[in-house]
């Protein structure tokens, strides 16, 4: 389905139109079906974290018949299985049995991350420049400690022989990016870097040829070494975010069962056309908008509207893609697919919301904007000044090069990526994936948090309120009846009675829209709706209920309630304690919304809010100057997620919502949301500190360079000390919060 959109382009928020992206992707899906080695399966393991997990998972999988080999990658939390003839559906239960949650991953979407070519390319350049730096430093130490005349020239020549190819190789990422920004008529951070690299190398060759005292080969190589580390960290953070997005796309497999001349065939959702007949099994998600032509069932529309109660559906009823069919098989005639579907209708809303938010300028961009012109101006004026005063071109160029090298943003280049790496690593361990680079900074500014109800503050799954209402003798019957249906209330009942062995039933029949009936020791037993069982209807509307009737006895009422997401109460309490405004916006009826708000201590809540109103509400708050964090999971939240200053959705959310949000919660617990705000604030503070540190070093070192006293030794010291302090400062983040 639409989750393809995230695989399509990893650019954050590109997937605003999920359905539009689905078509080309489906073509790619088809093309690669042959190319892919069918034996390789990739499963994600969100819970794996230790040596025992590796052993358990690998052993369980290799012991499974037909598995040739299995290897866990703990860094990426996934396992690659070589099992010809087996599918993920065979292996996921194997892992579930030993207590590991696993999801099938889309190997195409992961191709980019497993063979992370760009990352290895950067590592290679780091290795080469590191090697060169060590060797040149050995020679430079000799020069600094007083090597003279022929020896010094020899050392300079050898350094040059190592440095020039190194700079040419290791500097390529900077040269390429500087060239791109020059062509776009901008002065990025990479322009002064490239200029410094080239100028330092050139002046050093010239000086060496004329037996000069100072050569900056070591500085040039060191510069590229430190900056490459910053570049690599940056790349890794992005790659992890990207692979996170890729994992999420694979949680649902976008297929539909099409009926063609009475025969069923499984096709990609994108291959559906209006007028096609499709079959949807109980428990399956509706793949495209359509009209029911056969079958009755109940439909869970929680993800679209936020309603907890299922809706009864019969022929003639119109369904939208994304709803879940619960009890009976349905045959639909597709009315709209791809770009025309109801998913696409939300697109306009989401796009408008995104435009309204505008583009966020990150701290690094703001720093670079002021920094680049200043550095160029400084270097150029020192050149002009010295040339005018001394008339010595060689001296003037030397000093300009020294200024460029000293001011070069080693520390600036590391300041942001080092913090981002340690912060996102920390959030990842807490179960929060960052999809967007600037999300952390935006999150730090948040002062109002808007929550959706169903699926966000609650699990969107009902729970039996009081299991003791079922007499002990009837437990096994209730369990067996509940097992027969995939209706959420039945599943909740089965879960509540999980410890009780099911009774043996005969003639089990599921009546879509009504319930389940069966025979038990010759007596008729039923589990289902009040009107079907002639039970007294209780019209309090607050609770969900189901009835159990055993022939000869009065029907028994079973009450259910949607359960709170774990950590929700703590999260809200902590947010409020930190002085943030918490608002609850739900599409559900007022009664359950009020009840939940009361339980969680939220004073500001609105029920029955439509998707457009949610987005409007967020927009109004933004106009009042509030920075809104939206936490939501449904299609009805998508526009609000896109409109908000920052947004988070749980992994159980509909793909469109995940695509629209900046961050995704991988676990069930809502607790990390409050923590994320704190980590984000801390990270932003560290970034500012890092800017201050590197600025401080420049304040000390630049005057030295300007008066012409900068030697290669001073340049090397300033560069390495500032880079190391900045990195250490960033690493402090990995420690304790507060």
């Amino acid at each position: 389905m639409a989750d393809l959109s995230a695989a399509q382009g990893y650019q954050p928020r590109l997937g605003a139109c999920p359905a539009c992206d689905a078509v080309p992707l489906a073509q790619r899906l088809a093309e690669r079906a042959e190319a892919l080695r069918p034996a390789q399966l990739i499963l994600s393991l969100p819970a794996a974290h230790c040596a025992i997990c590796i052993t358990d998972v690998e052993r369980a999988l290799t012991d499974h018949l037909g598995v040739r080999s299995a290897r866990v990658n703990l860094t990426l939390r996934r396992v690659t299985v070589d099992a010809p003839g087996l599918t993920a559906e065979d292996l996921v239960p194997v892992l579930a049995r030993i207590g590991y949650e696993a999801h099938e991953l889309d190997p195409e979407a992961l191709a980019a991350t497993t063979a992370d070519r760009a990352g290895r390319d950067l590592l290679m350049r780091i290795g080469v420049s590191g090697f060169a730096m060590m060797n040149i430093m050995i020679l430079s130490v000799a020069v600094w400690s007083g090597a003279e005349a022929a020896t010094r020239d020899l050392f300079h020549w050898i350094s040059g022989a190592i440095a020039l190819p190194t700079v040419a190789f290791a500097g390529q990422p900077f040269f390429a990016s500087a060239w791109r920004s020059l062509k776009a008529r901008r002065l990025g951070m990479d322009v002064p870097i490239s200029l410094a690299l080239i100028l330092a190398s050139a002046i050093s060759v010239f000086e060496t040829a004329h037996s000069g005292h100072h050569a900056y080969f070591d500085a040039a190589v060191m510069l590229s070494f430190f900056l490459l580390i910053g570049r690599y960290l940056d790349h890794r953070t992005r790659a992890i975010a990207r692979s996170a997005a890729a994992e999420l796309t694979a949680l649902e497999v976008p297929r539909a069962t099409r009926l063609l001349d009475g025969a069923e065939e499984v096709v990609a959702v994108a291959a559906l056309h209006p007028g096609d007949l499709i079959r949807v099994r109980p428990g399956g998600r509706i793949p495209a908008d359509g009209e029911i032509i056969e079958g009755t069932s109940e439909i869970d529309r929680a993800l679209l509207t936020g309603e907890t109660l299922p809706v009864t559906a019969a022929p003639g009823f119109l369904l939208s893609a994304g709803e879940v069919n619960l009890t009976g098989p349905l045959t639909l005639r597709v009315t709209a697919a791809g770009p025309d579907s109801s998913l696409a209708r939300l697109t306009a809303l989401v796009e408008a919301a995104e435009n309204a938010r505008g583009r966020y300028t990150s701290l690094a961009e703001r720093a670079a904007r002021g920094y680049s012109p200043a550095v160029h101006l400084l270097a150029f004026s020192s050149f002009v000044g010295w040339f005018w005063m001394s008339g010595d071109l060689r001296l003037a160029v030397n000093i300009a090069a020294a200024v460029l090298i000293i001011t070069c943003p080693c520390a600036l280049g590391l300041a942001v990526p080092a913090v981002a790496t340690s912060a996102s690593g920390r959030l990842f361990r807490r179960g929060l994936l960052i999809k967007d680079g600037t999300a952390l900074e935006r999150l730090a500014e948040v002062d109002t948090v808007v929550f959706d109800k169903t699926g966000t503050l609650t699990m969107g799954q009902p729970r039996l309120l009081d299991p003791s209402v079922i007499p002990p003798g009837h437990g096994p019957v209730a369990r067996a009846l509940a097992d027969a249906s995939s209706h959420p209330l039945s599943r909740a009942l089965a879960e509540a009675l999980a410890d009780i062995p099911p009774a043996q039933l005969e003639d089990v029949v599921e009546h879509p829209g009504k319930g389940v009936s069966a025979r038990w020791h010759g007596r008729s037993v039923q589990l289902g709706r009040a009107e079907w069982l002639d039970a007294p209807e209780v019209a309090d509307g607050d609770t969900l209920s189901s009835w159990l009737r055993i022939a000869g006895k009065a029907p028994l009422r079973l009450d259910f309630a949607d359960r709170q997401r774990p950590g929700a109460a703590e999260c809200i309490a902590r947010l409020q304690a930190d002085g943030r405004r918490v608002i609850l916006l739900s599409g559900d009826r007022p009664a359950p919304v009020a009840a939940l708000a009361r339980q969680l201590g939220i004073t500001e809540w609105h029920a029955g809010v439509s998707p457009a109103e949610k987005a409007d509400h967020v927009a109004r708050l933004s106009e009042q100057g509030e920075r809104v964090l939206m936490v939501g999971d449904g299609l009805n939240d998508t526009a609000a997620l896109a409109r908000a200053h920052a947004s988070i959705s749980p992994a159980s959310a509909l793909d469109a919502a995940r695509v629209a949000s900046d961050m995704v919660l991988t676990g069930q617990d809502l607790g990390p949301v409050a923590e994320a705000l704190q980590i984000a604030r801390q990270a932003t503070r560290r970034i500012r500190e890092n800017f201050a540190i590197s600025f401080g070093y420049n304040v000390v070192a630049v005057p030295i360079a300007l008066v012409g006293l900068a030697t290669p030794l001073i340049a090397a010291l300033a560069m390495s000390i500032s880079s190391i302090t900045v990195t250490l400062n960033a690493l402090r983040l990995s420690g304790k919060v507060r």
Partner: protein
Amino acid sequence: MEILTILIPVSLGLGAAGLLAFIWALKDRQFEDPKGDGQRILSDRWDDHPPQN
């Protein structure tokens, strides 16, 4: 100072050897799962009989 003619090639050679080892490890995909590799030594699964493949 003639010793330099030996020492400099030796130091460069040692550095180059280290670089080659790094490049080999990189091409051999030994940096794919740093966290897992760190944890794997704690497992005694293959202590007595190394894996076949």
